[in-house]
């Protein structure tokens, strides 16, 4: 399979008045054509920054080092005009808050047709009808009429659909969705998840889905990347990660979720959840050994000094832990 996105040894540092924040540390991952990859991990583990840097959207105080290639072309340090030809056209991003990518002062029609006219060379009329079709595709009723509305005239769920329509407009090879349903009510989230999996069926776009909701990953993703403190600690096929997690953090994460299906123990007594003690590390200082060591139930002496490498197990399953090796 060919890689659409290939990230190699990525480091992202932010300089702040309090010192340097090591947000992403030596991270490598790749995304193949048509595949859907879920990115999970604690808040602050670097999930968003990895892909904001892919899109060239890091904050001013942030620096990315390493390599991020899109269809083989290096994105880090790419000139603005070249990046603009890729961004929003061949790769697009969907955010938690749709207003991040919609302009509040412009009608939806204008925002959609301009992209198509500029990058796909369509006439205004062609662009308009393609935009309407795309809005219909994502389930906006009366799209021909609503295409001329402003973003604030849509409800939250509808606005999310409009943003998805915008992202899909140029049929990108890669869609990066950062918590696309986190702000939505669950019945609306269900509609959007349904839409996303339907779209996955009939476009060939690769999807990166960043989320803290393991249920969303379980439903939509082929593969999962688990991050902790700016590194990949485990990655594998979705069933391997959920049914045979190997890294102590992944194991703890899956055990700490309350289950809607019940805890299987019955009775009026409520079992305790298996929480992970402690809290994620401060990224302001370099971490010598394994970043999970202070919270890890299996920690041993060398975890404090030696950083575990990401070691391949089987089936594309890989894990960064001294206590886990190929079986």
């Amino acid at each position, binding site marked *: 399979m060919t890689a659409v996105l290939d990230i190699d040894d990525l480091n992202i540092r932010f300089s702040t008045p309090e010192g340097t924040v090591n947000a992403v540390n030596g991270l490598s991952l790749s995304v193949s054509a048509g595949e859907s990859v879920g990115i999970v991990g*604690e*808040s602050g583990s670097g999930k968003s920054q990895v892909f904001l840097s892919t899109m060239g959207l890091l904050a001013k105080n942030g620096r990315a080092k390493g390599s991020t290639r899109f269809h083989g072309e290096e994105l880090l340090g790419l000139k603005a005009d070249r990046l603009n030809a890729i961004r929003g056209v061949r790769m697009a991003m969907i955010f938690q808050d749709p207003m991040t990518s919609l302009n509040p002062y412009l009608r939806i029609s204008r925002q959609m047709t301009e992209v198509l006219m500029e990058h796909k060379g369509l006439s205004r009329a062609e662009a308009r009808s393609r935009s309407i079709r795309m809005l219909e595709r994502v389930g906006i009723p009366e799209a021909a009429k609503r295409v001329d509305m402003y973003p604030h005239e849509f*409800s*939250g*769920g*509808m606005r999310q659909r409009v943003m998805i329509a915008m992202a899909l407009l140029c049929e990108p090879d890669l869609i990066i969705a950062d918590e696309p349903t986190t702000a939505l*009510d*669950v*019945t*609306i*989230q*269900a*509609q959007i*998840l*349904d839409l996303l999996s339907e779209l996955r069926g009939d476009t060939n776009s690769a999807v990166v889905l960043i989320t*803290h*909701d*393991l*249920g*969303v*990953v*379980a*439903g939509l993703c082929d593969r999962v990347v688990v991050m902790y403190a700016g590194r990949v600690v485990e990655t594998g096929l*979705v*069933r391997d990660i*959920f*049914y045979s997690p190997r890294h102590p953090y992944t194991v*703890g*994460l*899956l055990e*700490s*979720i*309350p*289950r*809607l*299906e*019940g*805890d299987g123990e*019955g009775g*009026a007594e*409520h079992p*305790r*959840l*298996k*929480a*992970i*003690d402690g*809290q*994620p590390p401060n990224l302001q200082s370099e971490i010598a050994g394994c970043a999970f060591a202070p919270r890890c139930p299996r920690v041993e002496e060398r975890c404090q000094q030696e950083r575990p490498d990401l070691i391949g197990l089987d089936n594309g399953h890989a894990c960064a832990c001294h206590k886990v090796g190929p079986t």
Partner: protein
Amino acid sequence: MSAPLLSVKELHTHFSVRVSKGLFGERRPLRAVDGVSFDLAAGETLGVVGESGCGKSTLGRSILRLIEPTGGEVLWQGSDLMHVDRHTMRNHRRDIQIIFQDPLASLDPRMTIGEIIAEPLKTFERSLNKTQLRDRVRAMMDKVGLLPQMINRYPHEFSGGQCQRIGIARAMIVEPRLIVCDEPVSALDVSIQAQIINLLMDLQRDYGLALIFISHDLSVVRHIGHRIMVLYLGQAMEVAERDALFDRPLHPYTQALISAVPLPDPDKERAKQRIMLSGDLPSPLDPPSGCVFRTRCPKATDLCAQSRPSLDDRGGNQSVACHYV
């Protein structure tokens, strides 16, 4: 059964909202809480679930009169909180505490956490001297899993989970009988969320605390709740024991809500039949006539537009507001 600790009867909290501009702009009633009733026993947890705008937070705040209800009764150990004088209300406030979703925002940034946790004691136990105060605070910090030597630190030096522990310590220090928890874990990571849920359950067990646990997360509510109330546009759709509600939901909205939750289990999640609700939540300013759920209900008929179904017991302590159950 012994008399309930708290008994809420036909509670209404309506706001008057200006829907057009200007001095004489049109105002409309927003029925944030629209006739909600429930009983709560000591040591019991009522889980309150629903989507945005369903009135969960207004309900919680109305019980403490942080927002003034516009009708109904709130009986606390038999006395009606809606009609007590300020002095009595203040004493009751000691028994009923509240914690909020955004831990950091609810803590005064200029106070040390010791001062924050001690504050309610200064109101309710004025006779304590400085040493006694400090001892009480340190003991409570220890109880909620904060290192007592952090007593002089400021809130911004703490993580989200720790700030929530500070909020819980502040609520617990006056030994309340009931804590209203308004989305207390929604802002936290799953691994930290589990710590806080365990803490609340431990405190409940050790002190016989009653909890009203408000959340949009059904899995969390199933885990912590004894009884569950499902709200939609200010009204209770269904109230039942936890297992009955999740295993045999009767109201069409409860059924859809539960089926909408993505399960963290790839095989189950992909095999699952989802009940899709079409459309958006109606505006609470313009709720549908009759049954408020009818615009999204797959089973709605003409009758549903004409009359509001009452919340009736369908046996086994399961109450449902639907014409067709």
